[in-house]
């Protein structure tokens, strides 16, 4: 199921060209209206302190947010960092989905491919780090072997 969490996880990290392609198609067929132009703003990050198991505020994260509407249906784009184009495209896609436009069906394959690429890239980074895993030998075993 492609819920908003999964979709936004793809769209905040996929190539901008894919997002633009989707958005251009939307712009050709739908009359999108920018309600709030992309602007940088803050999201306060809350985290769980594992000692007390209570939340606290770590600090603020700079994000870009944008609101677009189509047929009175609003859509929101929110992404970490200064990324006005990405925020606009994400808002456009969100508005189209909220207005019942079958965007997920039309782009399912491309979106799933992008998702796979993002996961693969992140896995590769972690796998590279995992190569620095320590394989402990106790000194006794070391001496026995050599």
């Amino acid at each position, binding site marked *: 199921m492609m819920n908003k969490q999964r979709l936004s996880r793809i769209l905040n990290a996929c190539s901008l060209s894919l997002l633009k392609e989707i958005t251009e198609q939307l712009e050709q067929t739908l009359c999108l*209206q920018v*309600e*709030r132009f992309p602007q940088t703003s803050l999201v306060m990050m809350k985290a769980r302190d594992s000692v007390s198991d209570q939340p606290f505020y770590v600090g603020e994260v700079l994000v870009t947010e944008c609101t677009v*509407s189509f047929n009175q249906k609003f859509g929101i784009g929110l992404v970490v960092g200064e990324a006005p184009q990405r925020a606009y495209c994400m808002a456009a896609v969100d508005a189209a989905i909220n207005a019942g436009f079958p965007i997920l069906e039309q782009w399912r394959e491309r979106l799933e491919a992008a998702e796979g690429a993002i996961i693969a890239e992140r896995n590769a980074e972690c796998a590279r780090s995992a190569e620095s895993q320590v394989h402990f030998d106790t000194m006794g075993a070391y001496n026995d072997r050599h």
Partner: protein
Amino acid sequence: MTDTKSFHEVHDTRRVYRSLLDSMARPGKLHDLSPQMNSIPNAIPLFSGTYALGRTLLDAQTTFYLETENNEAASYLELRTGSRMLAAERADYLFIETQPSVDLIRTLMQQIRIGTLLEPEKSATLIIRVRALSDSETSGITMTLSGPGIKKRRTLSADGFNPEWLRIRAARNMEYPTGCDFILISDNGQMAALPRTTMIESEAV
């Protein structure tokens, strides 16, 4: 939000904000918000003064209370600003669009936050709609103002402004720095502020 296209969320709110700062610094001085208010379409369920000041002052970090006759007004303001409507005693900004009864004025003025001696900034601001404001003609009630930001004295007349507001304001603002600040805004876009430091004399009170 096609109906708000001409009111610019950055430029117009900045202009309103500059006017607000100056009217707080110079109590009773009139500021003309009609250019901004006229750019707001008539179709909205709010008084254009509420809209202009609301867009300027409210965001997700602030709260408001709205006294209105329109059922859609509060949710409209919430959606446009990200702010939330709360009970009068918890709100940061209280917008009064109607002409409330003396009883309601008394209730609201008892509920409004005036801060504490340690945290006077936890007080609230009242934004009251009046029919007309003037510094030359005398219509409605005439107030003689003095205090910080006023050289000697300044006169302000407000039409459609219930003197009960002033009576209770004097009592609530007795212990400086606690107290609440008033912003008056007229139907045609004249705005004047009466911060807590301003002494008001009026025959009506």
